[in-house]
């Protein structure tokens, strides 16, 4: 069997990429004329959540691990890139003097910064992925939770990045175009991994780790890769988020954020399309709830109640799917190591 020629393989794809890019550009330029700044901001946050959720979906949904510290990876990416921007980037961009900077230059700056945030978080993913070789189920969940909290507490006490007052004055380099572009790339990459030997190895681990290992799949390596890739995308999302909101605080990356992401993955039930839809829905939810809170004069944030209720509802309605997506199978048997 001969492989098709390079042009035959790549040319239609190049067309597709350019087409999607042009469409994104048109949407990003056009939408701010139609929607107000508040709605645009929600759109940006939704896109960030999509990037975060498809990354977590690789760890929890595809590989069947149970990570509840994903916000920690986002924090790493956000803080490292924000600190770089505040310390060096701002001066370099000339934004310091209030001069207008070429939008293309700003975009290029962020395109360089995104992988830096991603790689920093990926390093964190490696750190968490390594214990995951020995821990399963509940124990792994506790380890990842601990990681997320350690990151948050470290940042809270690190004066160099603002400590408890947060880090402000981050240049607004993110744009609707870049955030939407990152979401499209993240979803496409995850979809493609699903149809590869790497993705199938992770699915095999989720289904039955003992059998996967017996078939020659290096489960330790595969699981660590899932953590590293998932964390990379979280770091990219953190970078985009920090450079959009211009202010970050350890509070933005607390346990609540991790739970929100787990909820999105659980609601998505393992399907990439549903994870994207759930990410959009869960981003919109607090905005809707804010209206409810104001109207009902509630003194507390009803989010936690709603999230819990949603989780219970999903558990009841789609129990089988949820267990598949969240908990690694624990089957008895004499050959279970």
């Amino acid at each position, binding site marked *: *069997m001969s*492989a*098709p020629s*390079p042009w035959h*393989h*790549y040319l239609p*794809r190049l067309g597709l990429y350019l087409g999607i890019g042009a469409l994104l550009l048109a949407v990003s330029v056009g939408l701010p004329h139609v929607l107000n700044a508040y709605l645009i901001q929600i759109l940006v946050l939704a896109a960030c959540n999509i990037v975060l959720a498809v990354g977590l979906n690789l760890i929890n949904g595809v590989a069947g691990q149970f990570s509840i510290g994903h916000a920690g990876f986002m924090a790493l990416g956000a803080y490292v890139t924000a600190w770089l921007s505040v310390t060096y980037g701002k001066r370099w961009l000339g934004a310091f003097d209030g001069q207008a900077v070429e939008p293309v230059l700003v975009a290029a700056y962020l395109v360089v910064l995104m992988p830096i945030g991603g790689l920093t978080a990926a390093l964190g993913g490696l750190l968490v992925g390594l214990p995951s070789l020995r821990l399963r189920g509940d124990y792994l969940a506790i380890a990842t939770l601990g990681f997320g909290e350690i990151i948050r507490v470290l940042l809270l006490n690190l004066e160099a990045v603002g400590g408890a007052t947060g880090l402000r004055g981050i240049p607004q380099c993110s744009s609707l175009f870049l955030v939407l572009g990152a979401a499209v790339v993240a979803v496409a*990459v995850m979809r*493609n*991994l699903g*149809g*590869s*030997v*790497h*993705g*199938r*190895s992770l*699915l*095999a681990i*989720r*289904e*039955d780790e*003992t*059998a*996967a*290992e*017996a*078939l*020659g*799949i*290096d*489960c330790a390596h595969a699981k660590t*890769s899932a953590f590293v*890739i998932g964390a990379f995308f979280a770091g990219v999302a953190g970078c985009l988020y920090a450079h959009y909101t211009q202010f970050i605080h350890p509070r933005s990356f607390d346990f609540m954020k991790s739970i929100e992401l787990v909820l999105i993955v659980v609601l998505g039930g393992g399907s990439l399309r549903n994870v994207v839809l759930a990410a959009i829905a869960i981003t919109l939810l607090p905005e809707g709830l804010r209206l409810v809170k104001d109207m009902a004069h509630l003194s507390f944030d009803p989010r936690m109640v709603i999230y819990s209720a949603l989780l219970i509802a999903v558990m009841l309605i789609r129990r089988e799917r949820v267990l*598949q997506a969240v908990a690694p199978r624990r*089957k*008895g*048997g*004499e*050959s279970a*190591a």
Partner: protein
Amino acid sequence: MSFGGLIAVDDLSLEVQPRELVSLIGPNGAGKTTVFNAITGVYPLARGVIRLEGAALSGLPPHRVAHQGVGRTFQNIRLFRGLTVLDNLRAAMHQGGDYDLIRAAFRSRRWAATEARLEARARDLLNVFGLGARAEELAGSLPYGEQRRLEIVRALATEPRLLLLDEPAAGMNPAETQRLMELIRSLIERFSLTILLIEHDMKLVMGVSDRVVVLNYGREIARGTPEQIAHDPAVIEAYLGEPTH
């Protein structure tokens, strides 16, 4: 092979020739599956060595043992139940994936060529074993007999030289067992395999084995051709208890 102070399988020495089919039999708890787990690296050996064509297997983690050419099935079927039949096979063929993560993420030309090759091979294998029509179904939804067969095909997809079958006939009716017997014999010819078989169904054991090794309480009590084993007093005693007078 020992757990704590308990010695599970002791002093078993076994040499299997290429393309030979050797059965491990013995009462429940005799240590048959433990032998499989020791070979595949699930349990570490307390002492001794296991070699495949000269290369040491003992000390390797399970996935490395599989890379050396050892495939296995499990007593309690361990299919990837939530994946399709085709994906069960493709997951087993991951060693044929000659592209890296970046190529996978961007669906490079090599990805396309490799995936086409893997799918064709997986479908060929499924057709050979009469599972071609089931390719798109979830493995967990197959009838019991087909799940057993799929598990064997999945092990074959890793292109093993040594295949370990752990009670493949468990739960099968006599007709299914008969078909399984023919299948196992044909495997040796078609894939030039060496097979170690654990089985309680004596008809199957007597029908397919070149040699039989009998274990009881972790020790070998007899070995020989099926005919010799069938008349061995020690074996009869192990299965039926001491003769009373």
